[in-house]
């Protein structure tokens, strides 16, 4: 990891995090249900984008550095935009309110939707290729 990589990751990670916070606020103002909708939408859209852009940039999912576009956008922005930790906190809160089945369902739905979105994103980029 070069100094440029660190800079791009920091910049991208910061911007992605602000984006996540903004989407979270916008969804939170409109939706007041128990399902953690904002984190769900953030993670699924981020997974779609990572699948799409990885194919577009010709990068393997394990390539985290290299071209500025890859480091800044995929590793930085999308890594910062999506969150695993808030998803787990949501699940713990859901378990307290609604029990373990709801929490487990939320995690599994997030996982499957995220995987489908990532697969769809990469398939779309390949079809356009």
């Amino acid at each position, binding site marked *: 990891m070069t100094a440029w990589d660190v800079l791009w990751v920091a910049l991208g990670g910061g*911007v992605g*995090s602000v984006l996540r*916070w903004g989407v979270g606020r916008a969804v939170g103002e409109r939706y007041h249900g128990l399902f953690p909708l904002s984190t769900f939408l953030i993670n699924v859209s981020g997974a779609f984008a990572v699948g799409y852009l990885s194919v577009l940039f010709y990068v393997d999912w394990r390539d985290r550095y290299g071209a500025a576009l890859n480091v800044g956008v995929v590793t930085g922005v999308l*890594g910062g935009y999506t969150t695993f930790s808030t998803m787990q906190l949501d699940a*713990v809160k859901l378990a307290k309110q609604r029990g373990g089945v709801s929490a487990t369902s939320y995690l599994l739905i997030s996982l499957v939707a995220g995987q489908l979105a990532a697969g769809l994103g990469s398939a779309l980029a390949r079809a356009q290729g």
Partner: protein
Amino acid sequence: MLKSVILVLVGGALGAVLREDLILWVPNPADQFPLDILAANLAASLLVGLVTGLCQRMAAPEGVSLFTTTGIAGGLSTFSTFAYGTVMLTLASRMSAVVASVYVLTSLALGYLAVVVGLKLSGQGSS
């Protein structure tokens, strides 16, 4: 508003750089199990539990959780690489598909547990 944006921006930048440092530092097993991403996600989940609990207990100002939970932990953890990585592993070979399944279930179970442990450590676990 501007103060919140700056807190999330700086926290997220710090978290993302921490994630990449951690990923470089954690060894990758020969079977392609993404131990590095798992480590980053678990560290972030533990941090989220700990800080959320402490903030509730001490009635900390919103800025503390914006910087630490939304910023650092959010930047440190990643769902996009987690989801995309498991898809690529599953499609690569039958062996790596098995690794992907183990990785997914371990991540979800241990991540949940990490939040619970973090909350417990903060003294908020029982509430």
